[in-house]
């Protein structure tokens, strides 16, 4: 299924420079220092208002969830959304800082995530799976989530899942090829 999606015609191509001052400012702000803007942000640059709201809506600063859990969630959502583009970026750019091992990365790509993830992490990925598939939680998962996560954590989980569905839709419909130097998620299954 993923292969077919990648062959899809792009509905919109990344914007080419030069950019207006406002767009350039947002692109710089979204990237680490001394890095050219990635294609995802250049697609958003077609709509400066949406780009600036996207920048304001980042959830990658210190949030309620530990970085490790946040990144596992993001990888899971991207994988479930068939978005290899964003999966690869997070695996490469945030994986080490989040303390993710190869086995952790692999776990985000497996049908039922198990070892080496903790019980809490597995619960969060199951919740993410349900949210991606049905935009809600089954009664069993909802009950467990309520027992294990705080209200603030639940809000953050849903927000992170929603944001990366959004990101995946942009990357998928634009049929973005992997950024340079990124490896594929299938490579981690070999």
């Amino acid at each position: 299924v993923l292969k077919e999606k990648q062959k899809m015609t792009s509905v919109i191509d990344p914007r080419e420079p030069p950019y207006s001052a406002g767009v350039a400012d947002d692109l710089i702000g979204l990237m680490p220092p001394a890095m050219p803007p990635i294609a995802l942000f250049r697609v958003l640059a077609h709509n400066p208002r949406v780009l600036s709201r996207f920048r304001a809506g980042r959830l990658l600063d210190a949030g309620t969830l530990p970085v490790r859990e946040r990144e596992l969630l993001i990888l899971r959502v991207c994988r479930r959304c068939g978005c290899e583009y964003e999966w690869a970026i997070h695996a490469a750019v945030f994986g080490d800082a989040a303390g993710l091992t190869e086995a952790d990365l692999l776990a985000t790509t497996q049908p039922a995530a198990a070892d080496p993830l903790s019980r809490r992490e597995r619960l969060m990925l199951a919740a993410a799976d349900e949210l991606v598939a049905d935009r809600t939680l089954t009664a069993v998962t909802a009950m467990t989530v309520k027992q294990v996560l705080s209200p603030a954590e639940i809000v953050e989980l849903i927000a992170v899942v929603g944001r990366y569905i959004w990101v995946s839709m942009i990357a998928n419909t634009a049929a973005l090829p992997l950024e340079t130097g990124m490896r594929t998620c299938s490579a981690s299954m070999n």
Partner: protein
Amino acid sequence: MLGIDELNRPSAARPDSPRIPPLGPPYAPEAAAALFDIHPRESLRKPLKLFRIMVRNPKLCDPMFAFGRFMLGRNTTTAASYDQRTRELIIGRVTARCGCEYEWGVHLAAYGEQAGITPAQAYSLVHGGGADACWTDEDRVTLRLVDDLHDHGSVSDATWAALCLRFPDTTLIELLVLVGWYHAIAYLANGARVELEQWAHRFPTKQS
């Protein structure tokens, strides 16, 4: 007699003694064909001394003049896609960094005004750099591209990221080649010790 140290120093150039003298009229047919391919016959100026040196090798003139036309052409569908100011800042900085007063002065006289290069900026190209107050941030990025390549043979990540906000990949390729091309021109002019054009600008005198 010059001492051995002076002979070994590239800067021992005596401007009155070109190593490869420019050809003058009457030109042999091959040389004339090459020369008046690049230099309009109806021009009031004599062909550039640099061209009159190059036409000693008419075979090399064809590809070099064609390439020069691509780099300097204004029709962006057939020639390079960068804007004239970026182009002239690059040429001005490369030739200054190479100590090539000949090509620096020719370009400043021919294109400096069109490209909006002020006297303060002309001075800064030769004796200063991007830190000077006379530049915009965009200009500074352009100068950094030249300085990075001249000093290190490559482009720093910070410079590259800034360039990527201004130019698509197609233009970036052209800019990298442009920097290299004017190094080649500077080497040719310096190495052959071409005499300065009478009408061209001179390097500004350094102020202490």
